[in-house]
């Protein structure tokens, strides 16, 4: 039991900090740059992504191990996973729309946009590549989502401050955003070697 718990924690720390999907593996950069202008929207996006990423990670693992592997159809994983992700996103949108209109309004356009978040597909594919089991897949998906949220929320908080700072004119807008993201990425690279995983 303790072994399983340690594994779980290791995966979490590894995906959140050491191998952060956005800042170290450079996946899911579009929402990272796109919705980080305001802290509020960034939090909404993080919430939606966390939910979808965890769920789609599990679902794609199930589809792979129960359907593709027994029939020797591993080469179909990409198209199958895209299908799974699209369905999970659509399903989530329906459920959220029904159960919590407030949250639905808050998430707005970000919910369907998650379909094209490459971190979601990346997690599904990496689960297979790393030969993660069922529980490990959950942990990996959740950890990746928490890492994504952490990076996105931190970045949007920085950008809100940068917006009122006296930035030289040629650097304003996207340029200073890119510089900031690069510096954050450097900072996160500092976690390398924290966990040997």
């Amino acid at each position, binding site marked *: 039991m303790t072994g399983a718990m340690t594994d779980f924690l290791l995966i979490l720390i590894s995906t959140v900090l050491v191998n952060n999907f956005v800042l170290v593996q450079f996946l899911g950069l579009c929402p990272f740059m796109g919705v980080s202008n305001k802290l509020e929207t960034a939090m909404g996006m993080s919430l939606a992504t966390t939910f979808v990423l965890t769920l789609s990670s599990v679902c794609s693992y199930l589809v792979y191990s129960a*359907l593709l592997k027994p*029939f*020797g*159809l591993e080469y179909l994983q990409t*198209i199958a996973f895209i299908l*799974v992700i699209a*369905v999970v996103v659509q*399903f989530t949108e329906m*459920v959220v729309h*029904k159960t919590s209109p407030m949250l639905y309004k808050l998430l707005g356009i970000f919910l369907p946009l998650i379909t094209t978040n490459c971190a979601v597909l990346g997690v599904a594919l990496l689960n297979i590549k790393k030969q993660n089991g069922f529980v490990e897949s959950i942990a990996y998906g959740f950890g990746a989502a928490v890492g994504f949220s952490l990076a996105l929320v931190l970045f949007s908080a920085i950008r809100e401050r940068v917006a009122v700072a006296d930035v030289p004119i040629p650097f304003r807008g996207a340029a200073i955003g890119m510089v900031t993201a690069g510096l954050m990425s450097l900072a996160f690279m500092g976690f390398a070697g924290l966990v040997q995983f």
Partner: protein
Amino acid sequence: MTTVITAILILFGLAVVFGIILGYASVRFRVEGNPIVDQIDALLPQTQCGQCGYPGCRPYAEAISNGDAINKCPPGGQSTIEALADLLDVEAVPLDAEHGEEQAKTVAFIREDECIGCTKCIQACPVDAILGAAKQMHTVISSECTGCDLCVEPCPVDCIDMIPVETTIANWKWPAPAESRNLNLIATDRGRGELQHQEAH
């Protein structure tokens, strides 16, 4: 050959299962809501004046979608009636005089030296456009005021005037684009295109 067929079957089966799940979800999690009410509400002037006999514009929009008459809105006037008739595909009728007459747009103005600070107009205002506190002078935020006249009646010292707003260069605005289904965007270019087309031949 069999591998190809299995692959196609598996993917097809996966898609069918997902389709069934989504189909079930769309029925199970159907959201109650009437889009026509939103469209009607968008056409109403949002004065929240209650002259139609309903407490606000949205209740009137709901009433219209349930079959109420479309000519009960004096602030909107004939143009609103025509827009509603167009939307609902019914005959445009003249404004029902029972609910009031169409007037030019007005805003409330409080003669501030006469105001006794009773807060009665604040409670009457449907859009929170009046600012003030008890025994303090009140004033109207003219950009928020919809000109609904509801504050005139409760004022015990009759210090509220309704001032008609004339359209000047300073406050003229583009009319909001109609939410029409077939907008002829850039209408002036249509004739020109045909002309060039003919010249080319």
